[in-house]
């Protein structure tokens, strides 16, 4: 019932509905063309300055370097494994302050955990699952650049099949680079019972922020799993960050969807999916699939998996 109601009320309809207030200042130590800080900037446009950003170690470590900060919001830094535990601590403190009437209910703060995929999908998964289990009311932005980019692109659980990282370099023995399938963080959160789980892309800001705006009505853990382009790690020109994200969605590699209380719905279905090759070939991390000889088998396998996913999902939708 609730899910059905949410479908109807689209709140951010066009790019002109995106507020022009800024809560992230320029000048942070992020790479040129960073997709992750773009995602954080967009989500904070709606959450505003009355937010505490809880940040696990990762690229965002350098968002705040004494004496500078990029955020208008408050910022708490935790170790890599325990950002959701940090969020729990702040939630408890706020609840106690409200209960003791030290602060007014209206002075309550949003709690936004921001971590990379390394913390979200591997190192910090335990504290995440337990926070979901306790139904902690918090937001989670997982900027997924598909490797440990802050330390030089080591493989994580979300590194896609066929990508080269500094720890899965393509060699004659393993010509694919990464041989495993990435962990499906979306499904992990859904099956853990989180009331709101979404995949987003900064290349689709209207879709992204519409999800954020509608999720405001939901109490409990809310995940925004964001595929954010990484120019040095994925090895493409910084100017192409938005294009890479768009190709990921249009080729069907990255599905934009949401799960409200377990009901999954695709919020954007590409009308005619472009070949995955278009998405792969502009990134240096997949170069070994094209040069010196094209690895047709591997590219076809990636295509087959994408087709299978959509066949299943779209059939389900009917």
């Amino acid at each position: 019932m609730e899910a059905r109601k949410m479908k109807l009320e689209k709140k951010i309809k066009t790019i002109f509905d995106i507020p022009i207030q800024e809560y992230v200042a320029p000048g942070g130590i992020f790479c040129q063309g960073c997709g992750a800080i773009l995602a954080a900037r967009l989500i904070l446009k709606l959450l505003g300055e009355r937010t505490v950003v809880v940040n696990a170690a990762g690229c965002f470590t350098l968002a705040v370097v004494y004496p500078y900060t990029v955020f208008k919001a408050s910022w708490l830094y935790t170790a890599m494994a325990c950002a959701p535990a940090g969020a729990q601590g702040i939630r408890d403190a706020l609840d106690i302050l409200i209960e003791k009437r030290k602060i007014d209910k209206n002075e309550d703060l949003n709690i936004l955990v921001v971590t990379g995929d390394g913390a979200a999908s591997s190192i910090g998964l335990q504290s995440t699952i337990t926070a979901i289990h306790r139904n902690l009311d918090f937001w989670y932005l997982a900027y997924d650049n598909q490797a440990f980019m802050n330390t030089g692109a080591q493989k994580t659980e979300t590194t896609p099949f066929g990508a080269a990282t500094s720890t899965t370099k393509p060699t004659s023995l393993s010509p694919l680079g990464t041989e495993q399938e990435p962990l499906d963080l979306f499904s992990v959160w859904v099956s853990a019972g989180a009331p709101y789980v979404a995949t987003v892309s900064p290349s689709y800001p209207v879709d992204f922020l519409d999800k954020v705006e509608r999720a405001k009505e939901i109490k409990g853990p809310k995940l925004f799993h964001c595929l954010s382009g990484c120019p040095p790690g994925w090895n493409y020109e910084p100017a192409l960050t938005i294009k890479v994200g768009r190709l990921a969605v249009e080729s069907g590699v990255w599905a934009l969807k949401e799960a409200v209380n377990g009901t999954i719905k695709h919020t954007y279905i590409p009308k005619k999916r472009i070949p995955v090759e278009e998405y792969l070939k502009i990134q240096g991390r997949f170069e070994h699939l094209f040069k010196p000889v094209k690895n047709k088998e591997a590219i076809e396998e990636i295509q087959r998996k994408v087709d299978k996913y959509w066949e299943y999902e779209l059939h389900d939708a009917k």
Partner: protein
Amino acid sequence: MIKVRFHGRGGQGMKTSSRILGTAAFLSGFFVQDFPIYGAERRGAPVVAFTIISKEPILERGYIFDPNILLISDETLLLDKQTDPTKGMSKESIVFINSNKNEDYFKEKIGAKVIVEDLTKIALEVLGRPILSTLIAGVAAKLVGIEQKYLEEAVKEELEQIGANEEMIRKNILAATIGYNKVQEVKIEQTESLEPEVKVVEVEYNDPEISTPVISFVANSYLKKTGTWRVFKPIIKYQKCKSCRLCYVYCPESAIKWENNFPVIDYENCKGCLICVQECPLKAIEIVREGE
């Protein structure tokens, strides 16, 4: 002993430069050390790398504080007080700066032997991208007096290791040769090799309240002025602009402000990623090279 320090920005290839110089010197029969400062990997952020070349075994370890040769791949780094590229330099040091300005511009400011060449221009012509690793390595190899054949061998070896293809290696050997021939060999005042002293420094215990500082200001990072990171500058042609907001929304770090229904680029902070140029549907944003 010759101590060479490289200053650049993430993505320009200074770490590779120091490696190529190290390998070339090693192939020429010297004892060598080369290493970068370990830090978070950031494209555009200041990077420092070191190469030490010696006829004797090198007993020292650690950063170079008294360089004989300084190679600065981006003149804007001279304005960066945190990096301070000329720190520890003596009057005898040789300073190479990559810039499209002339030598007199820097001579007074730096007060040492200054060599200036516009390598970015060459990189754009030869490699098609502003990557300076092999050009700077070529310059460095010539300055310290390494034979060209060892330089070429080192370029090949190092680039193969990072997975460059044959065409890239060929282009980069060409770039290294151009860098090599751009400058003259110079007489270098060498540093005496030191026996390292053993000195134990005790670190005092600090209360976490002191050792983890609190920042009571918000959103003040704009004071860092990351506009110096740019190689290319985006310029909005307002006659063509239809206020569609795409450049504004897609600017990763809010370096495009929305004022009076038009986008305005904050050049003090724009890092020059050029997403706005790529995404503008009307091609209303043009590019010029910084400093032209």
